[in-house]
C-alpha cells in the first residue's frame, strides 16, 4: 500500500480567478501583449540561439556577412554603374548601391528566415506553450546583428568616399523603424500562412527577388516617370530605401513616401496580428 503523506499545498491560496482560461472558438481575441511581455526572456534566448548557431563557425559566419554586400556592391558597380551607367543621384554608384543593399539585405534576409521560422521550429510548437509570435519576431531580431555589421561596412565606405555627414543622419531611425514594422507584418503573415500552405514557402524566394527589382535598390526612384511615382510608392520599401539612402548620403528625400510606408506597414501589422491569431490555433496540429 502506498503510504499517504500529508499533502501541503504549494500555493496556500489559489487565485480566485483563473490564471488562464482556454475556451473553444475564442479566436477573435487579439494577441495578448502581457503574455508576450512575460515571455520576453524567451525572445532574447531564441535570438541568442540563432546567433550562436549561425556564428558558431565564427570565421565563415562573419566573413559571409561582410563579403555578401561587398561582392554585390562590386558587381552592381561594375555592370550597372560603369557599363549601364545607371544614374546614382550624384553620389558614387558604389556608395549609392551599398546604402540600399544594407537595408535591403537586412529586410530580405529577415523576411526569409522569419517566414519559415514556424515550420523550422515545429518541434517547439508541438511540445511546449509560449506566445507563438515570439518565433518569427526572434528570427527578425537575430538578423539585426547582420544589419549592424553591414552598416559598419557602409560607414567605412562613406568615410572612404569622404561624403560629408549632415544632420539628416539623425533621421536614420525612421526608415529603420518602418522597415522593422514592415518586417513584423510580413514575417507574421507569411510564417503563419506557411504552416498551413507549404507551397507558399517555395514561392517566397522568387517573390523576394521580384520585390528587389520593384524597389529602388540598384536604381534611383526618380527613374520612375512622375505619373507612376505615387503608385510606385505604394511599395512600402520605396519610401524606406529612398529615405535610408538619402539620410546616409545627406540628400533631400520625400517625407510623404516614408509616411506611406509607415501607413502601409502599420495596416499590415494589424492585419497580420489578426491573421496570426486566427491561424495560431491550428499551428500545433498542422506543423
Amino acid at each position, binding site marked *: 500500500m*502506498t503510504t499517504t503523506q500529508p499533502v501541503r*499545498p504549494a500555493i496556500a491560496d489559489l487565485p480566485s480567478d483563473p*490564471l*488562464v*482560461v482556454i475556451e473553444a472558438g475564442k479566436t477573435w481575441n487579439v494577441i495578448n501583449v502581457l503574455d508576450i511581455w512575460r515571455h520576453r526572456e*524567451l525572445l532574447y534566448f531564441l535570438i541568442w540561439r540563432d546567433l550562436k548557431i549561425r556564428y558558431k563557425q565564427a570565421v565563415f559566419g562573419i566573413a559571409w556577412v561582410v563579403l555578401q554586400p561587398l561582392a554585390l556592391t562590386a558587381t552592381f558597380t561594375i555592370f550597372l554603374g560603369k557599363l549601364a551607367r545607371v544614374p546614382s543621384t550624384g553620389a558614387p554608384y558604389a556608395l549609392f548601391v551599398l546604402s540600399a543593399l544594407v537595408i535591403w539585405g537586412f529586410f530580405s534576409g529577415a523576411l526569409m528566415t522569419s517566414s519559415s521560422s514556424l515550420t523550422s521550429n515545429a518541434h517547439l510548437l*508541438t511540445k511546449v506553450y509560449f506566445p507563438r509570435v515570439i518565433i518569427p519576431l526572434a528570427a527578425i531580431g537575430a538578423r539585426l546583428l547582420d544589419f549592424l555589421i553591414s552598416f559598419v561596412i557602409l560607414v567605412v565606405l562613406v568615410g572612404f568616399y569622404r561624403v560629408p555627414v549632415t544632420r539628416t543622419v539623425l533621421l536614420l531611425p525612421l526608415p529603420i523603424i518602418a522597415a522593422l514594422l514592415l518586417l513584423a507584418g510580413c514575417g507574421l503573415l507569411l510564417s503563419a500562412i506557411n504552416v498551413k500552405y507549404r507551397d507558399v514557402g517555395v514561392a517566397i524566394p522568387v517573390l523576394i527577388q521580384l520585390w528587389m527589382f520593384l524597389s529602388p535598390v540598384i536604381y534611383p526612384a526618380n527613374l520612375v516617370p512622375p505619373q507612376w511615382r505615387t503608385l510606385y510608392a505604394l511599395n512600402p520599401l520605396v519610401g524606406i530605401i529612398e529615405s535610408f539612402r538619402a539620410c546616409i548620403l545627406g540628400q533631400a528625400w520625400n517625407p510623404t513616401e516614408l509616411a506611406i510606408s509607415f501607413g502601409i506597414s502599420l495596416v499590415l501589422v494589424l492585419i497580420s496580428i489578426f491573421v496570426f491569431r486566427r491561424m495560431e490555433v491550428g499551428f*500545433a496540429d498542422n506543423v
Partner: protein
Amino acid sequence: MKPIITLDNVGKQYKIRSAGATYETFRDVLTEWTIGRLRRQRQRKLSHETFWALSQVNLHVTPGEVLGIIGRNGAGKSTLLKLISRITEPTTGRIELYGRVGSLLEVGTGFHPELTGRENVYLSGAILGMTRTEINRKFDEIVSFSEIERFIDVPVKWYSSGMYVRLAFSVAAHVEPEILILDEVLSVGDASFQMKCFNKLEAIRKDGRTILFVSHNMQSVLRLCKRVIYLSEGTVVADGQPSEVASQYVTSRLRSSAEQTWDDIDNAPGDEVARLRAVRVRAEDGTITDVIDVRQPVTVEMEYQILAGGDSLAPNMHFFNEDGVYLFVTGDRSTQRKEIGWYTSTVRVPGNFLAEGTISVNVALSSPLAIRINEPNVVTFQVIDTLEGDSARGDYTGPMPGVIRPLLNWNTTFTPANAKPVCALEDVTV
C-alpha cells in the same frame, strides 16, 4: 478543495488527411476556389473527414493531486495533455487553470545539438518557462543532478544518448510550475537514473505541486499516482483509485497483443512439417489478456498443426523482458513423436515469479535435428503490481530492480544485546 484545473465539456476534433496529401497547398485552395466559382454545384472537393480525439471531458484536479492518465494508443491521452499545456486549443468546452503550467511532453525540448551543455541548459530552461535569474540560481543543481559536470562545455552533439537524456531531464525537473505535465518522460535513462527521476518526482509531489502524468508503464502510474483516469476513444471511462481503474483497464484490454492467430495456413509460421496456428496469453480464470497481476499465474498457449508426422518435436517458449533480457526458456520435456493433426501445448508460469514490466514471448517447435517453427515476439503481456501490499513489494512503492520477483519467506530472529547472535535461517518457497 477548490480545483486547480477544471475542464468543462472539453472536446478536440481533428481532420483526417487523406494519405499522400500531407499538407494543404495554397495551389489546391486556389484551384478549388476557382473551380467552385466556375461550377457552382461543386462546393468543397477536399472535404475532410473528421474525428473526435477527445470529447465531453469533465475533470477537476485539486492542488497537490497526482493524476495518472492511462489508456491505449490513440485514446486521447496526449491530446488531453496538449490541451491543458495550451499547445493546441479545444474545439469545444472550457479549461480553467489556477496555476502556472509546465509541460514536459518530451525530453530535451529545445535542445540544439550544436550548442554546449551549458548553453542548452539556458535555452531549454527558457523554453520551459524559467527566467534567466531562476536558471542562474539553479544551474549548479541542474548540472550536478545530471552528473555530467565534466562535459558541460562540450556541444551536446558529442554526448552519448544517456548523457543527453540526463541533462535534458535534469533541466526539466528543476522547472517549478504549480502544475507539472509529464508525458512518458520517466522511461528514459538507465535504471539508477530512473530511480533518481522517480525520487525527484516524489519530492515534487511532496512539495504539494499538482502533477498530471501519462505513461504506458503501468508500474510508474500505479506507484506515483493517487488518482487515475482511464481514457478510451476520447472519453473518460473510469476515474478513481489507481488499483480499481487499473483493473478496469486490464479487463478492457482483453485480446490485444495477447493473442495471435493465423487463419491462412500458407502465411502461418513454420514449414512443410509444422505450422503455428495460434498463440494466446491467458489469466488464471482462462480469459485472454495482456495484463497480468504480478501475484497471479499466467498461461501461454500455442496451437499448431503437424502436416507430416513422425518427428519427435518439442514445443518450447522463450521469455524476454522489455530491455531484451532473456529471462528463461522452457520446453515440454515429454518429447513424443507427433502424428498429423492439431496440437495445443500450454505452459503455466507461476504467480510471484515474473517481475513487473512487459514480457514478450518467442515460441518454437523443434527437435534436436531441426527447428520447424521459430517465431519471435508472438505475444506480449504486461505484468503489473496494483500495490495492495501482499506482493513481493510489500509496502515499498519505489522502483524495484531485478528480472524476477519471487515472493520469499523471511525469518528474522532476535537476540538481546549481550547474548551471542544466532544465524537466521532462510526458508524459500516459490
